[in-house]
């Protein structure tokens, strides 16, 4: 305020200064900020407060909650079930992200290596898989792996293995195998297209020169291609790790199709079961805060990378 007065006194109202002090940008931000505060800000604060309170049966019937400090966090992280879920989630996330990135790069290299027709077929099929809504994909895959008449059981039986009426979702290990197949299937197209876009930026001459100098395909990949696509690869891998931590819809749908819940829960479904299932809002909030902190920590480099773009 004082700067405006001072500058008006000086009689030199530069355009830059008017623009900086004008309320216009703030007014333009108001609707977005309001909806974010209501739908995310308030729940975030509520969650934080609740995670430090006792929220039992009495509180559900109107008794004011009492402050218990970090007791919920202690309760949560001394429970072996929590660590089982956290461990499974991290393992699932890393395995899926690794498989997805390796396969995605392989598909991108293939797109680059084959002729126009084969490339188009591969791209259309990847786009179809990418475009499928998660829930529709889950439904189809559950049908594909159905224990009674699924095509996978039929095919494996035809190959001489007895998979008649084999229930894939019953055992945690084969449950996660199915989940991995599905998550990798739906995630590879994004990686493949991003990396392929990176590959098309590499000049043909450099690769040809290297080939003339006697570099093998393997050498060309590790010495030229990989360093040149490293920026896009890092971002894609990071996003994959972040996204594979939040596989709620996929795991929930597989559980709904008839898997044992307790031994297949990952972070999202576990929070859901604590909060919606058993109304243990305090512990569910504490675990949610943990998931949010983990996400923010993982997102840090990605966000910094994007901020560089904002110039």
């Amino acid at each position, binding site marked *: 305020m004082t700067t405006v007065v001072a500058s008006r006194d000086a009689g030199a109202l530069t355009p830059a200064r008017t623009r900086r002090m004008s309320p216009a940008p703030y007014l333009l931000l108001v609707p977005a900020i309001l909806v974010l505060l209501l739908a995310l800000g308030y729940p975030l604060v509520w969650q934080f407060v609740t995670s430090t309170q006792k929220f039992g049966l009495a509180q559900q019937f109107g008794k004011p909650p009492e402050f218990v400090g970090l007791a919920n966090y202690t309760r949560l992280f001394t429970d072996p079930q929590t660590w089982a879920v956290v461990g499974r989630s991290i393992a699932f996330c890393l395995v899926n992200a690794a498989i997805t990135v390796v396969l995605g790069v392989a598909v991108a290299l293939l797109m680059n290596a084959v002729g126009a027709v084969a490339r188009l077929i591969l791209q259309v099929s990847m786009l179809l898989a990418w475009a499928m809504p998660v829930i529709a994909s889950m439904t189809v895959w559950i049908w594909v792996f159905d224990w009674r008449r699924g095509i996978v059981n039929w095919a494996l039986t035809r190959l001489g293995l007895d998979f008649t009426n084999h229930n894939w979702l019953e055992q945690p290990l084969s449950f996660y195998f199915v989940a991995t197949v599905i998550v990798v299937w739906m995630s590879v197209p994004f990686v493949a297209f991003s990396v392929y876009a990176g590959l098309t930026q590499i000049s043909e001459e450099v690769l040809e020169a290297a080939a003339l100098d006697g570099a093998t395909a393997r050498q060309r990949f590790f010495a030229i291609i990989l360093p040149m696509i490293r920026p896009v690869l890092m971002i894609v891998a990071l996003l994959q790790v972040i996204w594979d931590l939040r596989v709620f819809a996929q795991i929930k749908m597989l559980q709904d199709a008839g898997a044992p819940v307790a031994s297949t829960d990952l972070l999202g479904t576990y929070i859901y079961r604590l909060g919606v299932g058993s109304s243990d809002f305090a512990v569910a909030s504490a675990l949610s805060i943990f998931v949010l902190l983990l996400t923010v920590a993982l997102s840090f480099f990605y966000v910094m990378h*994007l901020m560089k773009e904002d110039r």
Partner: protein
Amino acid sequence: MTTAVARNRRRVRPARVAATAIALLLALIWAFPVYWMLNSSLLPNTVLTGTAPRFLPFGGSLDNFAAIFRAGTFWPALAMSVAITLVTVVFCLLFAFLAALAISRFRFKGRASFVLAVLFIQMLPAEGLFIAQYKLMSSLNLLNSVLGVAILYVAAVVPFTIWMLRGFVAGVPIELEEAAMVDGLSRTQAFFRITFPLLAPGLVASGVYAFLQAWNEFTVALVILQAQDYQTLPLWLRTYVQASATRETDWGQVMAASTLVAVPVIVFFLIVQGRLTSGLVAGSVKG
């Protein structure tokens, strides 16, 4: 003639043949579930429960779709999904457009913090907030309502939409507007006559993005819309999968239901793919 032979000889390199074969195999694997959904949706249950699968929809019909339309649960779910998606897209675009203007056309105090906050918020997973959002909507009496879910969807989608539109607005050079102002238009006129039409592709792309997010969303809907009568299409589809856990399912109908949910998404997705890659105002500020 000789060139054709030479080209032919280059084509038949074994490495290239192998690469093509692998590429086609991968294409087959990735397209198969989508094909299998369409194929099964056309086949009657008697065929699907037979001993061997039928790989082509011979003897197929649209009976499964007719059965879904008759069942009566599809239409309310469709209405719910359309209403929520519409409200989300309209408000998300409006709010994000205004915010994108602010951050790409103005330099102001707090701008960097706002952009930083938006980028972090965009990364937050629904699973980390949905219990609290459930309590919020419960205290506002907005559980099982279009408005309740739409508010949460707008907030979830608006950050990335702001980021997307920011790029599009920044892609329209301010010089275009200034030139129009030199020619006698006011700042507002210049914006709506010059910049706004150039932003149309950006708005379409962002609108489709918001549509896809709202149409496909599952997690928040599952928590907020627990009553049977207020299901969106993804939740409606889930009831079929749930049913399959305990009793024999008519998978033909489930696949028809799945197809109905997926087709609009696939169409819009293919549109936005093309829009995003085409250059925006290439060549409009030259000379």
